[in-house]
Structure formats: structure tokens, C-alpha cells
């Protein structure tokens, strides 16, 4: 009965925190690294 919470797209066994890559309540997967802002050195912002 109820939902199988292990198939909602969250890696519940992750030793790391989930929230930094949480894709939102409607996403089936976490955010990919290319989705997550990161404070890289300004020189890296080439475009």
C-alpha cells in the first residue's frame, strides 16, 4: 500500500546530501552537474 518511495528518483542511499542536486518535486531525476550553478573562477566564464 502507498507509494514505493525508492522509485521517486532520489538516491536515498547516498552518503552525500540530496538537496544540492535536488531536481525539484516534479523531476524524476536529480539535477545533472551541468544544471547546477557553481562558483567557478571568473576566468572560466569565457563566453
Amino acid at each position, binding site marked *: 500500500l502507498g507509494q514505493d518511495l525508492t522509485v521517486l528518483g532520489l538516491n536515498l542511499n547516498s552518503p552525500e546530501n540530496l538537496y544540492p542536486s535536488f531536481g525539484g518535486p516534479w523531476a524524476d531525476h536529480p539535477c545533472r*552537474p551541468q544544471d*547546477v550553478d557553481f562558483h567557478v573562477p571568473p576566468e572560466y566564464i569565457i563566453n
Partner: protein
Amino acid sequence: PLGAVPLQKEHQTQFQLMESAFYHMPHPSDTERVRHYLPRNPYNTPPYYIQAPLFNSDTLEFYQRLGTETLFFVFYYMEGTKAQYLAAKALKKQSWRFHTKYMMWFQRHEEPKIINEEYEQGTYIYFDYEKWGQRKKEGFTFEYKYLE
């Protein structure tokens, strides 16, 4: 044992509004900064494609196993993101250096004065046209003919 409780008028109204909002669900890119090359726009791909991110694909170990070309692709096309950061880290682990002054990646550690074809054997370079113009003014010599 509580049985069902009929929705009150107020809740019925709320439900109607919720229902119409249901047909305008937020889109993943709504909550992300504008990305020039790879916005967060999920596409429906054939089911036999990989659907979920690969295991550990947000770790440095994973990036270290990517090819150099791929790392440069990630570095150039996914700027300002964790992916760019991980790609830069992985490149550095493979003794690539990013010269902030020349805005270029070098696999050799000494600061080049002249770059020509034999210097660049087997090494990949990326640089920015505008910045290169400035460097040129500073006496930086660059003889490499083919640059894409």
C-alpha cells in the same frame, strides 16, 4: 473508521484552480539560469536510451575517466556549472594547466613564449580570439596556423 468527508465549497474551488494549473506544470528550465548551450530541457528519448544520470556521474572520479576532448567540451559548453568545475579539476589531474593570463589550457607546465606546431605536438589548446589579440599586443607570438 473516519469515512470520507465531502469537500467543502471552498475546497472545490481550489481544486478547480489546481486542476487547471496541472495543465501548466512548471518546466525544469523555469528555475534555472539561462544556459547558452545545454539548457535543462528534458527531451523524450527512446526508452532504451539511458534515462537516468549514470551512477556517480557527478563525481570527480567519473570525470577523470572521460576523454580529454570530452573534458574540453564540458569546460567550454557548460560554463558556470558544477560540470565545468569538475572538468577543470579532472584536466588538472591530467597535468593540464589553465593559464588565467592567456586563457589557455597547456599540458606543459612552463609558460610558453612561442607556440608553434612542433610545440603543440600532441597537445590541445583552447583560447579566446579577443583575449589573444590583447596578448599579441603584449608581444606574445603565436604561429599556429590552424585553429578551430
